[in-house]
C-alpha cells in the first residue's frame, strides 16, 4: 500500500528511485525463494528466532539456507526504506509542507526510518549465525567462552522495532479511515505526528523485554521494563485522539469503518496486555505461555490485519476502479471481529493458567480453551476468505468507481480511479490542511456522502 499510495498522497509521479524499487522487489522474491527452499528441503527446528547455541551448534536442519533467505530480503527492506524516505523528503508537491502530510504518509516515513536503522543489525546477526555454523566459530557458544545472550540482544534489537514496522502503517491507515467516515478532522494532528515518531524512536529502546527470562541481569531487566512502559504512552495518545476524533462526528458504518472501530477497541486491549508483560514479575509468570501469544495476536491480527482490511476496502475503488458489494463487506467485518475474539480471548486465559507455547500438545485441563480458540479460528477463516471472494467478484462485476467515492480529503482522491501512469493529470495543488472535512471549531457538517457509492447509515 505504501508503494502505491505514498506518491499519490504527496502529489508525486513516482517514488524517488524507481529502479531501486524494482531491485527491492526482486530481492524480496529472491529472499523469499531461498527461505521457501529451506522449508521445502525439510524446514528448520530452531523456531523463527534462531536462538543460539541451538541454531549454531546443535541443529541439523537447514538453518544456513533459511537465514540466508532472511538476510537477502533484509536488503529489500532497506532499499524500500531509503526509497520512501527520499520520496517524502524531496518529492512533495509545492504547498505540501511537513505538517500538512496525511498521517498515512507520516506513518510510512517513520516506518522507513525503522527499516533503515534496525535491519542492518539483523543482517549482521544473521551473518554471525551463518559464520558460526559454517566455520565453527565460537561467538555464541558458552562452552567455549561465547555469550548466547548477546545473540538475543542483537536479534531483538531488530525484531522489536520490526513489530513497530507492522503497527505504524496500520495506525496511519486508521487515521485516514476514521477521519473520512466520521467526517471530522483528526483531533490533535501534531500530537499524532509526534506520537508516531515517539513510537518509532522509543520502540528501539525496549528490546530487552523479550529477554526477561533469558538470564539477563536484573538491572538491565529493570531498565528495559521502564522503557517498555514509556513506549505505551504515545500509543495511548493516539487511541485517545482517535476516540476524540469520533466525538461529534457523523459516524457512518461502512465496512472500512467497522474494521477501524474494531481496531480501536481491540488494539487497546492488546496494548494494555502489553503493559502487563512489560512488568517483570508478571512476565516471568506468563513468558512463553499463550498469554503472550494472545497479546501479540491482538495487536497483529486485530490491529495490523484489521487495519489492513480497512485500508484495502477504503482504497480498493482507487486502486482497481471498482466498488465492492458493501453488505458482504460489512458482514465479513463483523464476522471477523467475532471470530477473532473467539479465537484469541480464550488464549489469554489459557496462558495465564499456565499453558505453554511452542509445544505440540497440551494437558487436558486446557481443553475447553483450546476448543473455543479453534472454533473461533474456523470462523475467522471464513471471515478472511469472504473478502477474497467478493473483492475478486468486484473486479469483474463491481460498479465502476468515481474519482472520489467516499467524498474524502487527500490528494489521492483528486485523480482518477485507477490513477494514470504519472499519477495525476497535470500538477495537483495543495489547498489546505489534511482532513479538511469541516472548518475548524465548527459543529458537525451536513452529511455529504454520495448515496450511490458510499453507503449511508
Amino acid at each position, binding site marked *: 500500500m505504501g508503494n502505491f499510495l505514498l506518491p499519490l498522497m504527496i502529489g508525486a509521479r513516482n517514488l524517488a528511485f524507481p529502479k531501486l524499487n524494482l531491485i527491492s522487489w526482486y530481492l524480496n522474491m529472491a529472499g523469499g525463494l531461498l527461505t521457501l527452499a529451506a522449508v521445502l528441503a525439510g524446514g528448520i527446528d530452531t523456531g523463527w528466532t534462531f536462538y543460539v547455541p541451538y541454531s549454531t551448534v546443535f541443529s541439523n536442519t537447514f538453518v544456513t539456507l533459511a537465514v540466508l533467505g532472511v538476510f537477502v530480503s533484509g536488503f529489500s527492506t532497506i532499499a524500500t526504506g531509503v526509497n520512501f524516505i527520499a520520496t517524502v523528503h524531496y518529492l512533495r508537491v509545492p504547498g505540501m509542507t511537513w505538517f500538512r502530510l496525511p498521517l498515512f504518509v507520516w506513518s510510512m516515513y517513520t516506518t522507513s526510518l525503522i527499516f533503515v*536503522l534496525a535491519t542492518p543489525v539483523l543482517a549482521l546477526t544473521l551473518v554471525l549465525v551463518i559464520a558460526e555454523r559454517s566455520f565453527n566459530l565460537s561467538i555464541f557458544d558458552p562452552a567455549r567462552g561465547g555469550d548466547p545472550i548477546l545473540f538475543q540482544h542483537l536479534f531483538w*534489537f531488530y525484531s522489536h522495532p520490526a513489530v513497530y514496522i507492522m503497527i505504524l502503517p496500520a495506525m496511519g491507515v486508521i487515521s485516514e479511515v476514521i477521519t473520512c467516515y466520521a467526517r471530522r478532522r483528526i483531533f490533535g494532528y501534531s500530537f499524532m505526528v509526534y506520537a508516531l515518531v515517539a513510537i518509532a524512536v522509543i520502540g528501539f529502546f525496549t528490546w530487552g523485554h523479550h529477554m526477561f527470562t533469558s538470564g539477563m541481569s536484573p538491572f*538491565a531487566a529493570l531498565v528495559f521494563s521502564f522503557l517498555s512502559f514509556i513506549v505505551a504512552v504515545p500509543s495511548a495518545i493516539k487511541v485517545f485522539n482517535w476516540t476524540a476524533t469520533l466525538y461529534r462526528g457523523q459516524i457512518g458504518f461502512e465496512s472500512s469503518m467497522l474494521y477501524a472501530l474494531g481496531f480501536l477497541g481491540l488494539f487497546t486491549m492488546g496494548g494494555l496486555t502489553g503493559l502487563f508483560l512489560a512488568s517483570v514479575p508478571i512476565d516471568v509468570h506468563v513468558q512463553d505461555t499463550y498469554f503472550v501469544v494472545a497479546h501479540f495476536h491482538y495487536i497483529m491480527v486485530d490491529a495490523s490485519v484489521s487495519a489492513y482490511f480497512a485500508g484495502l476496502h477504503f482504497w480498493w475503488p482507487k486502486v482497481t476502479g471498482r466498488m465492492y458489494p458493501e453488505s458482504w463487506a460489512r458482514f465479513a467485518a463483523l464476522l471477523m471481529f467475532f471470530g477473532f475474539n473467539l479465537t484469541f480471548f480464550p488464549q489469554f486465559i489459557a496462558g495465564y493458567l499456565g499453558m505453554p507455547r511452542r509445544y505440540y500438545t497440551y494437558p487436558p485441563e486446557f481443553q475447553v480453551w483450546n476448543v473455543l480458540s479453534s472454533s473461533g479460528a474456523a470462523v475467522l477463516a471464513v471471515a478472511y476468505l469472504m473478502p477474497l471472494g467478493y473483492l475478486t467478484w468486484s473486479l469483474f462485476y463491481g460498479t465502476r468507481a468515481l474519482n472520489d467515492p467516499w467524498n474524502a480529503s487527500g490528494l489521492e482522491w483528486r485523480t482518477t480511479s485507477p490513477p494514470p501512469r504519472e499519477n495525476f493529470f497535470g500538477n495537483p495543488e495543495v489547498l489546505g490542511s489534511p482532513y479538511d472535512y469541516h472548518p475548524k471549531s465548527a459543529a458537525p457538517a451536513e452529511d455529504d456522502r454520495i448515496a450511490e457509492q458510499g453507503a449511508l447509515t
Partner: protein
Amino acid sequence: MRARLRTNAGAIWLRGLVLWLLLLGLLTASLLAAYHLKAPWAPAVNFGLAATQAALVALLFMRLDRANDLVRLAAVCGLFWLAILFALTLTDTLSRLANT
C-alpha cells in the same frame, strides 16, 4: 555540486596532504601508545585516537563539514542509534560481569 573554478588543484592537494599527515601522525601516536602506555586506560586512548581519525575522515575527506543539514542529521542519527545499542546492551553485560 556545481562546477566551480574558485580553487585550483594545488589548493585541493594542500588541504588533502595536511589532513593525511595529521592522520598518519595519529596512527603513529596510537602505535606508540600501544607499546609504551602501560596504564589500564591505555585501550581508551587508542580508541580515542581512532575516533579522532574517523571524525577527521568523516568531516574532511567525506566533506561532512560542507554537507547540508539533512545529511548531517542522518549521520548523527546513525551514531545516536549505535550509542543506544551499545549502552543498553552493556547495561546487561557489565552488570552480569559485576555480579560474577
